[in-house]
Structures are given as C-alpha cells and as structure tokens.
C-alpha cells in the first residue's frame, strides 16, 4: 500500500514536471591537493641496517699494469678486446643530472662531466670518443645493471663503499664530494641540527638516504627516483631540505637561484667508476686512463668545462692502490 502511495506520488511529481528543490548547501572548505612526483616515498621505506662488510679502504683500487695499450689493439682475451669486438663501449649514466650527465635541450646531445669521462675511456679503447653507447639508469639500478652485464661501466656519481665493493669493482676516485644540504634561501636552516622531525629528500638506493636516517637530530627521510624530483619537492615546499653530495647539490642550485647549499659536509664521498666484479683487467685499464687524465690536464679541462659553477677546479683526487 505504501509502495503504491509512493509510486502515485512519484507519478504525480513527474506529471507536475518538477523534483524536490535542492537545499542550499553551506560552502565547504576547499583545499588544493598537492601534486607529487612519481614514486615519492614519504617517509622513505625503512632501510635495512647496513650489514657490516669486511673492513676495507674504499678508495683503494687495482693498480694499472704498465703502459696503456694502443687504441684498438687491446690484449687478446681481455674484457677490452670484447668491447672492441662489439664496437661500442656501453656506459650507464644519469640523463637528469645537470652538469654531470644531461641532455642539452638545444642540441639534444648528452653532455656533462661524466659524459666526457665516458668518452675519454672510449677514446682510449677505440681511438674514437664517439664509440660509446650511453644508457640512462636510475640510482637504484646502478649495481643491478653491472651485475647483469647490461653495461660495461657505470659513471653515475657512485660512492665507493666497502659494502658495494662486495658487489662491484670500482676504479680509482675521479671526484671527491661531501654530503651537505640544499635549502631554500632565507629558510634559517644551517645544518642537520635544525632539521629534527622535518623532511629531508634524497634518492632511493643512495648512500645519502641512509645518512639522513642516521642523523642524531632525527630528520624524516623522503625518497624519490631522481635528485631532480627532490628539487621539485623543495620548490613546492613539500620537503625542508635536499641532502646529497655537494657536487649534485651544486648542479641543483645552478637551476634555481632561490636555493643555497649549507651546513658542514657530514661525509666524505669518493666517486668511482663502477665495473662488474671479475673484470679486473678493465679496472686496471680504466685506472690507467684516469691516471693519464690526471697528469696530462684532461681531468682539469673536463672539470673546468662543466663544473666551474661548483668553484675553481681543485687538484684531481689522488689515486690510491691496493698494495
């Protein structure tokens, strides 16, 4: 019966051609949703504590054996001979690190300090600096691509640590850097002491993110796929600081004058070229090339070409070898 009444009422309303008048709603509080870059972890996934690796001197690599072989005439059976056979040196790099490895939007070409370093090694193997195939990889992919043999070497501001020496080889140090902070100018942040409970950004899988977690002031780590995403977050006020090695911070600061690098270096980070475990001959060869670059002024020339925004070229880091 009630159903019928309802149905009748509905029919009548329809016949009358009007529905109920909607009530006036009070204006709801509206707020914008903050956009985030792809794959941001805020806070960063908890990191398993670093297993304590056997003690080592991270900067020590393998000593070059004698003079470098002539380009194109690599010793038979060597890793370099395989590369010559293939026709190209495969190098894992960053395409998004301003001044280190990036695409110049005008020319579309890969440019930067680490790109030139890769070309220098190709020149030593082939006599042709262009016989190189760059492959863009993420921070977290640096070791896996070496382990899978997808690339011959990785030049991507890779910090030499005893832990990583368990998984890959490193060349001698080609750049020294220290982990510091990038903040917005006028933020009043001077060091990690000011960042207790505040958000600090670094890339996933980097040594930097671990160091952020270890700071006694207790900052909250936020991880991204790329340091550039950290700068985006900083510009949008979603993090209070970016923390990674000073050379990469300088590359970020060069893209935004509203930021500055502050605080003491909390680490000393030697960057080395990553090479697969077992390719000792290639390690020795690359160290030979680096040695030559240090002494004949090539290192200084490449540094000055790209990294002058970081300050005048220092002396190249001295090579350290295992005895």
């Amino acid at each position, binding site marked *: 019966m009630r159903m019928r009444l309802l149905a009748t009422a509905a*029919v009548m309303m*329809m*016949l009358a051609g009007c529905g109920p008048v909607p009530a006036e709603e009070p204006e709801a509080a*509206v707020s*914008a*949703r903050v*956009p*985030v*870059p*792809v*794959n941001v972890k805020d806070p960063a996934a908890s990191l398993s504590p670093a297993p304590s690796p056997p003690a080592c001197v991270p900067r020590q690599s393998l000593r070059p054996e004698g003079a470098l072989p002539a380009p194109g005439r690599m010793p038979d059976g060597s890793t370099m001979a395989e590369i010559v056979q293939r026709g*190209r040196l*495969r190098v894992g790099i*960053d*395409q*998004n*690190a*301003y001044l280190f490895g*990036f*695409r*110049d*939007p*005008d020319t*579309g*070409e*890969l440019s930067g300090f680490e790109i030139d370093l890769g070309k220098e090694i190709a020149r030593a193997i082939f006599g042709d600096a262009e016989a*190189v*195939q*760059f*492959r*863009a*990889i*993420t921070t977290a992919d640096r070791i896996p691509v070496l382990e899978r043999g997808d690339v011959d070497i990785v030049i991507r501001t890779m910090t030499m640590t005893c832990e990583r020496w368990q998984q890959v080889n490193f060349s001698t140090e080609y750049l020294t850097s220290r982990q510091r902070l990038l903040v917005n100018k006028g933020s009043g942040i001077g060091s990690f002491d000011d960042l207790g409970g505040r958000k600090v950004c670094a890339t996933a899988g980097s040594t930097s993110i671990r160091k952020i977690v270890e700071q006694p002031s207790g900052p909250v780590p936020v991880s991204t*796929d*790329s340091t*550039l*995403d950290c*700068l*985006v977050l900083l510009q949008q006020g979603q993090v209070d600081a970016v923390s990674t090695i000073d050379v990469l911070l300088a590359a970020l600061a*060069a*893209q*935004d004058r509203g930021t500055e690098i502050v605080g003491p270096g909390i680490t000393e980070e030697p960057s080395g070229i990553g090479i697969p475990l077992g390719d000792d001959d290639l390690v020795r060869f690359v160290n030979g090339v680096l040695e030559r670059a240090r002494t004949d002024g090539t290192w200084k020339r490449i540094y000055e070409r790209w990294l002058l925004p970081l300050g005048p070229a220092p002396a190249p880091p001295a090579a350290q070898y295992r005895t």
Partner: protein
Amino acid sequence: MSIRARWARVWKASPGRLGVAAAGLVALALIFGVTGVATVRRRAAVVTEVATVSGPLNTRAQTVYRALSDADATAAIAFLAGGTEPADLRQRYLDDIARASSALSEAQRDADGEAAPLLDEIARELPVYTGLVETARAYNRQGVPLGGAYLREASAHLRDVLLPAAQRVYEVSRSRLQDGQREASVFPWVLLLLGLALIAALAGTQVWLTRRTHRLLSPPLLVATAAALISCLAVTGAVSRSASFVDAGRQEGSADAQLLAEARVTALQVRADEALMLVARGDGGAFEQHLTEAFGVSSGLLDRAGRESEDRQDITEAQQAAANWMLQHQTVRDLDAEGRYEDAVRLATGPEPTGQIAVFARWETEIDQALGAAQGRFDERARAARGTLRWADVSVILLTVLTLAGVGAGMARRIGEYR
C-alpha cells in the same frame, strides 16, 4: 437495513445491475486512460532524458576524459621537441585544455549524485596540472633538466588524480544512460493487459445486455469499444515501438560508442606512455609497463567493438594501425636502449609520414570514424524513439473521453428504459 441486504436489492433489480456494470466500465476506462497517459509521459521523459541529458552528458564526460588524456600525450611530445616546441603541438595542447574545461562546465550543469563531486575535483585540480606543465615548459626553455621533473610530476598528477576522476564520471554517466535505456525499453505489459481487460469488459457487457434485453447492439457502446480498441493498440504500439528504438539505439549506437570511446582513450594513454618514457630518460620502466598493459586493454576493446559493431571496416583499419604503431614502438625502444636517443625521439615525435605521430593519427582517425557513426546511430534512434511518443498521450486522453462518453450514453439509455 444491512449493507449486504441493500446490495442484494440493487442487484436483484435490473437497473441496479446495469448501474454497477456502468460504474465498473467507467472505472476501468479511467484506470486505463490514466495509466496510458502516465506511461506515455514517463516514457517520454525517460527517452528525452536519454536523448538530451544522459546521452550528451556521457559524451561530455567522454570529451573531458579524452581531452585530458590527449593533453598528457601532447605535452610530453611537445616537451621532447626541446626548448622551442612546434606551434601545432602547443596549439593542440591548449585546445585540449580548452575542450576539457568547456565540457567540464557543461557536464557540471547536468551531473548529479556521484558525478558532481568528481567533476568538482577535476575543476579544482585541472589548474594545478596546467600550472605544472607551464613550469616544465619554462625550465625546458632555459635548458635545464628540472623541466623534465616537472613534466613527470604534471603527468603523475593527471594520471593519479584527474584521469581516475574523469574515468569515474564517464562510468557513472554511462550507467545513468544505461539505466535510462533499460527503463525505456521495457514492453508495456501492464498497459496492454489493462487495455485488453477494458475491451473484454465492454464486449462482455454488450453480450450480456443483448441476451438480456433481446435488443440489437447499442451504437454508443460499439463506439466505446472501438475507441478502447484503438486506444489500446495505439498506445501500446507507440510505447513498444519507442522501446524498440531505444533498445536499437543502445545496441547499434551507444554500446559500440562506449567501447570505441574507451579504446580511443586508452590508445591516447599508450601514446603518452611512449613520450613519457622518452622524457624520463632512463627512468621510464614504469611507463613502459603501463604502455604494455594499456595497449592490451585498448586492443581488447577494439576487438570487442569489431565483433559487435557495424563499422567493421574502420575498426579493422584501426586495428592494423594499432599493430603498426606497436611494432614501431619496439623500434623506438630498441633505439633508446642502444643509446640512440635522438633517433628514438625523432621516430616517436617527428613529422615524417611513417613516424609514430602519423601512424597514431591513422589509428585514432579510424576509431573516430567508427565512433562518429555509432554516435550518429544512437542519436537517430533516440530521435525516433521520442517521435513515436509524440501525440500518444493526447490520443489516449481523447479516446478515453470517447470511451467514457460511449459507455455513459449507452448505459444511460438502457437504464432509462426501465423507468
């Protein structure tokens, strides 16, 4: 005197029986007439809603969804062109945003229920998206990689917030349309049964009267019977024809259109994925994965549309273009993996007639043609469905009045004969 006794007396006397019969016929005729008018009006309202509100709303939701997906792809392709993007790509992006905004405000007018807050969300977040795209552009023009990071953030915002809302609005409007279509394509059984009951009652009364009074048939009652018969046939006929037009509009029109629209929107996402993979410069694994999945979805939808639709020719050609595009995408990937980034970008974004842009245009155009045809069929059937209902309510009223008049006149004369 008890009610039962009074009824018995009325029933015993012939004029009493005639009076009861007359009242019954009048009531039946009235019930039939009111139900007929209500059914026709209700159907007309639903059919009009389908044709002029939920159909267009569904199309507008489709437009928002599509324009946003196209903006995503176009912004990424324009970005790849470097510091100075080609004017036509810039224009296409701006047009997409304009189209999305305009369809959005139109859709907000008609939307209700679940769709309204979603449309609000799109309206709130669209400026955030365009702001990020412009920031990306500004940095790209300065030649710093930060632009790429902003473009990826813009795309993520579009894909995580705007597109899901647009997709949901589209689904809601689609089910609203389908509900309307379902309601408007039911056969009017109740009406038909009522009509038959009225006719049977009229016929029965006349047989009874003829036997009882040994007189010839009464002309007014004959007129009433004829009017009831015509009314019943006309109104159930009109409603059921309209129902079958609505059903045909769904089967031949909107069902195909929905499959094709979804196929096209996923195709646009596939295309955006390729460009974003290149923009990401090495960090694009997630885009590649999304591309593979979206391509599978798009192909599946096209296959289904191909089985069900009348536009097989267009759809087959769209499928071929899609296959070509995918084949060429493998080349783009291989070039990128080999470090021949420039060549990969040229193949993906260059103006060459064999480039990905041209292949995609073919893919999209073929879908568009089939979609346009399906949409046309929907509109045509909806118009026809509305047309058949026109005047149906008026004719029911007139014929009901005629039936009542006939019953009144015929029965009054018989009752009068007893006085």
